[in-house]
């Protein structure tokens, strides 16, 4: 199974601009990207990002151990969005450094539980987590009814020029 992601440049810029906004106490911001699945040949899949939803300031929890932690209202609203729209949702945040980013231990411990909630609300869509650095983007995708994520083979920002972010070893 291989998965490629595509995101329009305007949307990609909007995500970056929102995540760059300072928060009263959180060290970083998080948001959610809407996505739909597209079929390719055989078991190859496309994840097509279509919208962005910022997490309101009052839905962050003041936790000095985490860069950003969101409360249950934020997660419940994300689940409702999945139910209302039928879209998949991807948790997205930014690590402020150049080069290929990597999910930290906190990301790997906490975010999959959010994804599990999203899968309950929308079992037929792909959900996951997206991580930006200053100049790179990676994505982990939970396909419908699958417990373990796959790493996106390629994330393409659709604009002029096209930007390609390939998985390691591609």
């Amino acid at each position, binding site marked *: 199974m291989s998965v490629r992601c595509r995101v329009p440049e305007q949307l990609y810029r909007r995500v970056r601009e929102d995540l760059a906004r300072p928060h009263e106490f959180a060290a970083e911001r998080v948001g959610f990207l809407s996505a739909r699945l597209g079929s390719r040949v055989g078991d190859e899949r496309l994840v097509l990002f279509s919208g962005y939803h910022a997490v309101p300031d009052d839905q962050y929890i003041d936790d000095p151990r985490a860069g950003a932690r969101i409360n249950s209202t934020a997660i419940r609203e994300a689940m409702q969005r999945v139910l209302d729209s039928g879209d998949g949702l991807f948790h997205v945040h930014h690590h402020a450094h150049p080069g290929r980013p990597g999910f930290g231990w906190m990301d790997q411990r906490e975010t999959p539980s959010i994804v599990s909630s999203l899968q309950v609300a929308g079992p037929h869509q792909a959900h996951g987590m997206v991580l930006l650095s200053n100049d790179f983007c990676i994505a982990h995708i939970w396909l419908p009814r699958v417990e373990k994520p796959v790493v996106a083979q390629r994330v393409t920002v659709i604009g*002029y020029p096209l930007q390609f972010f390939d998985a390691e070893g591609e």
Partner: protein
Amino acid sequence: MTNDRFSRQSFLGERAQEIIGNSIIGICGHGGGGSHIVQQLAHVGFQHYRIYDGDIAEDSNLNRLIGATVDDCQRESRKTTIAERTIKGLQPNADVKVYPCRWQNQPEPLRACDLIFGSVDGFAERRELEACARRYLLPLIDIGMDVHCVENEPPRMAGQVILSVPGGPCMFCLGFLNEQVLAREGERYGDAGPRPQVVWPNGVLASTAVGIAVDLLTDWTRELRSVVYLEYDGNRNTIKPHVRLQYLPTSPCPHYPANQVGDPAFTMR
């Protein structure tokens, strides 16, 4: 392949050849325009092709179908076979998948592409191809030409190159497509007769399209042009930005909303 195969195009950038080699290119229509595009892509070094055309080579194609021979017409070679032969002659290890049918009959491989070239006949075909490209977030470069004959005047040869990038203006926004031209085309369906086509305007349009594609992928010009709509005047031998670009709508494209992506699905709620 020798090490200096692409040395004359190293100005495209350090990673350019890698990007070019990894990109999957869709070509819809291997006729007068598409055959120029295929040949040039192979020269540039593209390695992954998905080519659609349901036609066979005929005598009337030989005035413009690059790579086609008299023998192809006698053998009734498929145009996709000619495309594959052209590419393999330059890139023997290229991954070439050909589909001797309309792209609509086998659209899945097209969705996997990084970039599509459209060299199709008519406005309705263009509308369908752009709708697919928008739904799967694919950049599309469309080329086309026509010759208009008006009584007592010399024939007028015109053409266009349009880059349609999801999120940006579509061919409807640019005024190239509209309900009137689609309706007129529908009324004429079946009695249009053979449309005038010649080799040189297709060469100009295809070369321009390949140049846009290479820049889109490598950003070698660093011009960051967001909208490309070029008009070709075959009588004056000019190609220039279309006048309609001055009157582009500033609002997002209303024809292909951002949330209309992916496989269409019916959901019961």
